[in-house]
């Protein structure tokens, strides 16, 4: 007999590993809460090093989860990010799957 409340292991194994990494999950969470976010705020809020943050952002950009805008403000280069519809959907799916798995685990 299979417990219908048992967590679906296959569903957990199919989690988006790109989103599953904690730093990238945090980056997507911040981006999903605003229209546009500058690199400096991500650095400040997440406490990540510049190199580490750039590396995670590049991976998310390659996957089409965010778009990068580079501009100059008072001759200073400024990099901003926006989450894409694809990125938002990936984050929502991930959170839904995780929360479902965690709540089933508690039951």
């Amino acid at each position, binding site marked *: 007999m299979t417990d219908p409340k048992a967590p679906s292991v296959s569903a957990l194994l199919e989690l988006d590993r790109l989103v*599953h990494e*904690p*730093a990238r*999950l*945090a980056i997507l*969470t*911040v981006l*999903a*809460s*605003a*229209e*546009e*976010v*500058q*690199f*400096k*705020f*991500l*650095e*400040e*809020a*997440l*406490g*990540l090093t510049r190199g580490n943050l750039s590396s995670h952002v590049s991976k998310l950009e390659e996957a089409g989860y965010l778009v990068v805008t580079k501009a100059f403000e008072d001759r200073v280069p*400024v990099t*901003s990010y926006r989450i894409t519809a694809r990125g938002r959907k990936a984050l929502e799916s991930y*959170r839904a799957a*995780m*929360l479902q798995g*965690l709540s089933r685990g508690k039951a």
Partner: protein
Amino acid sequence: MSEPVNPSTTARLDELAAVTREYAKYSRTSFGLAPAWLGGWLLVASALSAVWRGSGANLVRLTPVVWLWALAKARAHYQRHGEVIEEEEVPFPLPTSESGRRLFLGMIYFSCVFGIMEASRSGPGTLLFSAAIFVAVPAIATRVLKGITDAVVTAGWMWTVNGSLLRWLDAPPLPHAVLATFAAGLIAAGVWQHSKYLRLERRLAALRDRA
């Protein structure tokens, strides 16, 4: 941000999202101390207009320019940890961001025309001054305004200053009491928003320390 995802991580992510949304408000809907500066300006300008009629009224007419200056300064101060633009909830559909920008610039220009018409009722002497101010404001506004919310607030200032406010100043003594109350309200709103921001900064620092 290195431990595996678990319920406490989920709670921290929710906190991170909440802090980001609140911080983003200082890009559009929360102006920090900007209303307080404007309230102070209105008090000084209206006091001068009471003793120095004509030229004093022109100081009051500068209010939209002072507002945009205060807005730009407040934004630079409150978003010093990096700019985060708030998601704008517009009560009507905007097909693209470019058309949205055209729409709110249209609102500003409409307010300019209204402002100049109102100023002409105060006398021909002030018309040229008002026209110059209200041509200059949109030029500044295109650099400072970031959305419909800003446009509505700035247009509101233009209507208030050139409509009711200048007429109130011409009919003392009650108008000065009304204006003083209005200015005190602006100062209180600015101080309240600033205290909210200070709490937000502590939350942001706590999140960073726990990362």
